[in-house]
């Protein structure tokens, strides 16, 4: 009897404490009263959603197994099997609760060591954190006013997309990229919103943004890997609607080298050609294309060598070569210069400039843009607003970017919009709003 009363007391106190925390963190507070779901709520607020899902999942399974265990004959094989499973799940559950708790402590800017206290005394710490006004979440901000940004996609661009898409260049009109997972219980979470750009052919574009600003999400939305609520047109063709054909018109070089290291350079390129060139391509034409790519990227000399024996810069060029083989109209590169020294990186970007000069659109993410900024035509700056949504903070030439942000280098521009906890100035909202205002005034968002 006493045991039951104690259990209920601990449950109520813990729930009330977490209720306070969830309220402070702007999550659904009543979730605090449902075991498992409470940690999921906490995890969402501190960006450890995956951990929260595991806590929730294990909690549900443990409840079911607990029910089953009471109905199985002890000492039977099935009982032992279920018992082992329960022990394994309890261990996983506790570990992931600790991970969520550490995330909460980080959000409140408290040391990780308090996590042990939380787990041992599950109600004391949540009550203090939830109801003592001294403790407030540090890394949660006010969400940006959506009303202000509503309609920043100019009527001219939307109309152009809807009625008569242009035949040249890349037109990006991302209304939103949201996460729609079955495991989510609440309103949809936005990763990107209102990104509107028109990039002419023959342009080398730098995509700038801090971590979590949505660079990769935008790239994946553009190349159709992760479709967004968007319309993406490449030279007059809808990438989403014609993905089966358009995927061959887009080259994407990820940061990681996706090469089979123990194959030769020439065979790697030849296989890429076999896979990506239309069936109608004659062997002579195929050879010409392969030789052309090797010449452009300086791969001809060591073409018979194994990929694994090549330098970092060379491997990057082979990666680019496998994508370039299908002569894509849009070429996207995610940190192609990572791990390369200045000279090699410069040489690589000069080759990308050459590709752009052939009338292609080359979109590049790099974290060291200043050493090659003179080669770029345009800069896209993405920033994560205080509502954790990636937004367009600027699109224009590098000179215009310097004037807009009143900073002399791209790296300093990045610092402007980066979060404070990442060592930045935390002014993302300010510049997002400023750019929105600017495009409204211009009436042609992103179009110069």
């Amino acid at each position, binding site marked *: 009897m006493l045991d039951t009363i104690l259990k209920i007391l601990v449950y109520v106190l813990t729930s009330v404490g977490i209720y306070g925390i969830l309220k402070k963190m702007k999550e659904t507070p009543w979730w605090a009263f449902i075991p498992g779901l409470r940690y999921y709520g906490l995890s969402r607020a501190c960006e450890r959603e995956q951990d929260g899902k595991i806590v929730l999942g294990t909690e549900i399974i443990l409840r079911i197994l607990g029910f089953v265990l009471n109905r199985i004959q002890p000492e039977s094989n099935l009982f032992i099997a279920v018992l082992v499973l329960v022990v394994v799940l309890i261990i996983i559950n506790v570990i992931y609760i600790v991970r969520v708790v550490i995330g909460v402590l980080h959000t409140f800017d408290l040391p990780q060591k308090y996590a042990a206290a939380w787990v041992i005394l599950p109600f004391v710490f949540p009550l203090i954190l939830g109801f003592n006004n001294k403790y407030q979440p540090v890394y949660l901000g006010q969400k940006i006013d959506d009303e202000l940004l509503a309609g920043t996609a100019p009527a001219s661009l939307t109309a152009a997309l809807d009625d008569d898409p242009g035949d040249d260049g890349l037109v990006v009109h991302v209304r939103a990229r949201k996460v729609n997972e079955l495991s989510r219980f609440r309103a949809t979470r936005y990763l990107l919103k209102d990104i509107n750009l028109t990039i002419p052919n023959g342009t080398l574009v730098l995509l700038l943004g801090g971590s979590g600003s949505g660079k990769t999400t935008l790239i994946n939305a553009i190349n159709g*890997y992760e479709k967004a609520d968007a319309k993406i047109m490449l030279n007059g063709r809808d990438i989403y609607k*014609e993905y089966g054909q358009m995927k*061959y018109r887009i080259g994407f070089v990820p940061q990681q080298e*996706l090469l089979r290291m123990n*194959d030769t350079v020439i065979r790697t390129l030849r296989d890429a050609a*076999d*896979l990506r060139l239309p069936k109608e391509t004659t062997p002579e034409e195929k050879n010409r294309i392969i030789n052309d790519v090797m010449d452009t990227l300086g791969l001809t000399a060591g073409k018979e060598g194994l990929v694994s024996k090549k330098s970092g810069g060379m491997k990057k060029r082979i990666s680019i070569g496998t994508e370039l083989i299908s002569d894509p109209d849009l070429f996207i590169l995610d940190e192609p210069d990572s791990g390369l020294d200045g000279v090699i990186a410069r040489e690589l970007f000069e080759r990308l400039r050459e590709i752009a000069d052939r009338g292609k659109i080359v979109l590049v993410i790099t974290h060291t843009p200043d050493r090659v900024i003179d080669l770029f035509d345009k800069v896209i700056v993405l920033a994560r607003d205080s509502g954790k949504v990636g937004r367009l903070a600027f699109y224009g030439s590098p000179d215009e970017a310097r004037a807009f942000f009143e900073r002399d280098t791209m790296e300093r521009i990045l610092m402007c919009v980066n979060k404070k906890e990442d060592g930045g100035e935390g002014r993302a909202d300010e510049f997002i709003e400023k750019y929105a205002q600017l495009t409204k005034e211009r009436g042609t968002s992103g179009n110069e």
Partner: protein
Amino acid sequence: MSEKLHYRGRIGQISIYLGKMLRMFVYQNDWKVLPMAALIGGLVTFAVGPNMYVTQEGTISGCFALICACVWNGFFNSIQVICRERPIVKREHRSGMHITSYIAAHMIYQMMLCLLQTGIILMIVDVAGLKVHSAGLISKYLLVDMGITMFLTTYAADMLSLAISAFVKNTTAAMTVMPFVMIFQLVFSGGLIPLTGPSAIFTDYTITKWGLQSLCTLGDYNSQPMVTLWNTIWKFRAMEVDGQKPIKLMTDYILKNNKLDEVLLESGMYNGEKAYEYISSNVTHCWTMLGIMVIVFAAAAVIILEFVDKDRR
């Protein structure tokens, strides 16, 4: 401008990936699985000794050891082949690669490896002087029937580990999962550790059960002498009952009248298993089950890998 272009289809892509795999065989040291098969074959033959297909005990332990070697080879052939290049598969899938072509190329390539490994082990078994030269139950030669069984066992294990490799995200996870699957295969084969009750249901889903059953049938297990019983009785010769030694009396009688072989054969007959009965349908049933496993595991690999695009970055 928007004319529809045609790209390499499924069959065409198989040849691209098969070519890649054959080059990997040379460059990426995949060939090392062949000497490994020879080494394992040698060790197993050494452990099996001359009693395989001579006594029931030698047959069951020898066949089990051979099947273990086959499963081991199959597992190691492909446990890492997909997961080690998973990001490449994801990228290529998005660029037009068909998963069915990719897995089909793996199936062809792995089939060649399994055939070579089976050939190597059989050669060692033959050279080591094991009694494998009698007539076969299905074909003309026992060695051929054994070869088909061992190949199917190796290939089924290979396809199972290919499916695992398609499921896990990296090589570390693959090498963590593999021992569990291996232990399941060995423990639940029902050969050395007889299983009863609910746990016996699992045996039908193991590759080892069907491999072992086939090899034991091919060796005519039920017609072989059983020596364990005699050896156990022999240990009790000195036991007295009411001042007499009945067991000694019995063993002396058997030896004196040269009836030992007859007794051993008789005890083997009583120890016989229906599953090991020397009839061709037993063997073909095992082969069919192994063949079904090959198809099921390969299909599972295709289905699982179709979701590779869902991988997080």
